[in-house]
């Protein structure tokens, strides 16, 4: 009894949401993961396609060479080299647009899980077929279906483009 309660509790704690948002699964899917807690009273940095200019720059505390670069930024920008411009971009932003737009591998897990559970359902239904279901109705037996088909042909069911149109009434067999 106690062990079954523990099993139920364990099952309750294990939900898809906790699995899909766990950091190890997310990193397996190739997504970036936040590791520290956030202070929601302050403006947040965000990488979003629809708001391209974040509220605060990504790096706010500069070391020595970063401070020198920031000083140089106050001057004419034509004097900055390409590497310096890229370095300044990476100071203010965490991800580039290309990195933001990159997809993840989550779909593989979803499709894999889908097929797995479809297979499991198939096994369950096979077991039911063997141990649960009763006999099929007698109207599905070979003899009954043969009698039924003959009666449908005699009644001229759908003789124009349907059932009886496939039967040759002269040679008494199905049309080739």
């Amino acid at each position, binding site marked *: 009894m106690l062990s079954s309660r523990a099993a139920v509790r364990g099952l309750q704690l294990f939900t898809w949401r906790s699995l899909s948002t766990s950091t190890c699964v997310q990193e397996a899917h190739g997504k970036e993961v936040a590791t520290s807690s956030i202070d929601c009273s302050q403006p947040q940095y965000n990488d979003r396609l629809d708001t391209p200019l974040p509220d605060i720059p990504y790096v706010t505390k500069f070391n020595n060479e970063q401070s020198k670069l920031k000083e140089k930024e106050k001057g004419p920008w034509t004097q900055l080299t390409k590497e310096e411009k890229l370095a300044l971009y990476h100071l203010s932003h965490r991800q580039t647009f290309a990195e933001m737009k990159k997809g993840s591998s989550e779909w593989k897990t979803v499709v894999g899980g889908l097929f797995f559970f479809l297979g499991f359902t198939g096994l369950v239904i096979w077991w039911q077929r063997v141990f649960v279901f009763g006999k099929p109705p007698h109207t599905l037996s070979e003899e009954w279906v043969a009698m039924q088909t003959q009666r449908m042909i*005699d*009644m001229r069911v759908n003789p124009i483009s349907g059932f009886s149109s496939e039967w040759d009434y002269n040679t008494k067999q199905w049309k080739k």
Partner: protein
Amino acid sequence: MSAGTLAKPAMRGLLGKRLRFHLAVAFTLSLAAAAGFKFSVTEPRKQAYAEFYKNYDAMKEFEAMREAGVFQSVRPKGQ
């Protein structure tokens, strides 16, 4: 930076341009679908019905069905 300046992108009429293009596509595809259905489904079906009733003898069919024993109001001639 790049050697020359970029061309100024289109700033106006974007929705109109998209609608004009997609309207033409939608009309064409709809007409094609309707024509395809007409010539692959309705015309053959009309032909099939015309063929069936060209030499259809209702009394002959009735006698055949009667002999097969599918009616409740008339039994086959032997009974």
